[in-house]
């Protein structure tokens, strides 16, 4: 029996896939939900073999959810389901990733379930990059033990580069993630700013920029009062971003 997790924000779309899966045989529907972050949690708890994942959902979309699932020690195979996403479909084709178009045909579902394979995060990254104006993720995913911790972007104070890993300092503590600082800076260009070579700060958590006794600048984080040094090179850009 293939253990299947069904993810779509529309009740009727889920209802139809559920009916198709039941008719299919050989499948065990272990869970369903209507949001990306919940899907990641269920994938971790229920350990499905296959996730049927809608691409466009409120909050965390299917592409992002798949990227987080890929961090699990035993990631499920993912089959994307979409009504019409020209760019996503082109990217899937380019990466030879199987997907289903709504309304889904029973025969297509059967063959997709047979072929379903795990997706590496690098392939998923390439797909995300291929969509126009790629949306930044809503969460950062950190491997913690054999599960994935989802850290909402708005809870992140700052990220710092640390030898091999990147440390995320957030409301719930500090976690290590795989994403290089450079990539994070690109992805979250609109909400984060680099203050020195190894620190990327969330603008929403900045409370002040203060001049220190030695003529340099520090940024102060609102909730923790923590101070981070601003390098001379980044000071100009920081002032511009904050319109100082």
């Amino acid at each position: 029996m293939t253990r299947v997790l069904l993810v779509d924000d529309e009740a009727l779309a889920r209802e139809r896939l559920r009916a198709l899966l039941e008719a299919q045989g050989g499948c065990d529907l272990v869970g369903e939900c209507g949001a990306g972050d919940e899907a990641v949690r269920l994938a971790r708890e229920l350990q499905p073999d296959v996730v049927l994942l809608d691409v466009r959902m409120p909050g965390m979309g299917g592409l992002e959810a798949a990227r987080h699932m890929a961090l699990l020690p035993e990631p499920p195979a993912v089959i994307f389901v979409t009504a019409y996403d020209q760019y996503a479909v082109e990217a899937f084709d380019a990466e030879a990733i199987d997907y289903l178009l709504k309304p889904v045909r029973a025969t297509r579902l059967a063959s997709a379930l047979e072929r379903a394979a795990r997706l590496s995060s690098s392939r998923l990254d390439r797909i995300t990059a291929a969509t126009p104006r790629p949306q930044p993720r809503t969460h950062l995913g950190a491997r913690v033990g054999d599960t994935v911790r989802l850290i909402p972007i708005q809870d992140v104070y700052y990220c710092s580069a640390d030898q091999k890993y990147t440390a995320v300092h957030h409301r719930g503590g500090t976690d290590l993630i795989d994403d290089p600082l450079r990539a994070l800076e690109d992805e979250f260009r609109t909400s984060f700013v680099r203050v020195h070579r190894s620190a990327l700060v969330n603008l929403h958590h900045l409370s002040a920029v203060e001049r220190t006794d030695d003529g340099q600048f520090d940024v102060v984080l609102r909730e923790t009062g923590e101070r981070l040094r601003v390098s001379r090179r980044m000071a100009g850009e920081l002032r511009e971003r904050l319109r100082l």
Partner: protein
Amino acid sequence: MSSLDEKRLRLPDFCAGPAVVAIILIVVLTAVVIALARQDDVTALWTELARTALFLLWTGLGSAAALCLLRRRLQSLPIPQAAAMAIGAIVAVVACVSQVTLWLGSSALMEPLAGQLFFPTHPLRFLLTNIAMGAIIGALALRYFHVIGEWQRNVELQAQARVHALQARIRPHFLYNSMNTIASLTRSNPAQAEEAVQDLADLFRASLTERSAGTTLRDEVEIAQTYERIERLRLGERLRVDWDIDTVPSGLPVPSLLLQPLLENAIYHGIEPRRDGGLIRIVGRLNRGMVELTVRNPLPEDGLSGHSGNRMAMANIRERLDLMYPGSATLESGETEGEYLVRLRFPTGGATGIAT
């Protein structure tokens, strides 16, 4: 907030061939008229025509050069100022050419022609008459060029509006999602599936039919509500729409597909990205002879309006409103108090332009 383009004086490019040819034609015809009015003797007529045409050609080409140089300034000014500036330029050219003519006539160079009355004898009268005639004929010519320009622009806009109307039609996303909904309902609720198919047919009929005129607000509200019913099947409780348009006369003529694209945008950008959905408010008001329609939707959870992708639908509605109510309709959009708002304003007095 953005609004409709202001009206501008529409003049051709006087730096290019076609407009210069038109000016030469106007000038020569004017010369013929003047010569005919002044002389009845056949031989004198030709002399008169020759010297008038020579004089007028200089003023005509001079004016074209002046308007060519002033082109950018003229296009940045409202019509009355631009027209005054253009006529002023023509009058200045006429005055200059007249002065040069007078100077030539009194110079020693023209000694051999003395006594033939080739040059004007009353300098001041010559100058003033020329300025008056230059102002009148210049104004008429400008008016002619402006009317032609407006007409050409209207033809272009209409063609554009048609193309854009084709492109702005219902998103493919919506079609496939609806098909999926119907496929699901056929099993669980065939009666509702049947209704959905009927609604979908109505919607596509409205959007695919090339309607000339006669669309009223009532038709538009009906189409938008049909659209709302289909989307409600898919989105369920997440979609709430509050209609408050009863105070606006429902027989009011409006361009077709005016409301549905706005509702579609509101759902796509304001409801779908929100986990708990939200409330769309559609309000119609009458205000000092103007109808005001507003569509408001909540912003997505991430706070970004995401409305950058829908400029085409808005530009399309704006163009068609402007064709129907030239110069008096407006479309504004923007974020206010956590909501995205689109506001249409047009006169209740009926259309003066072309319905699309």
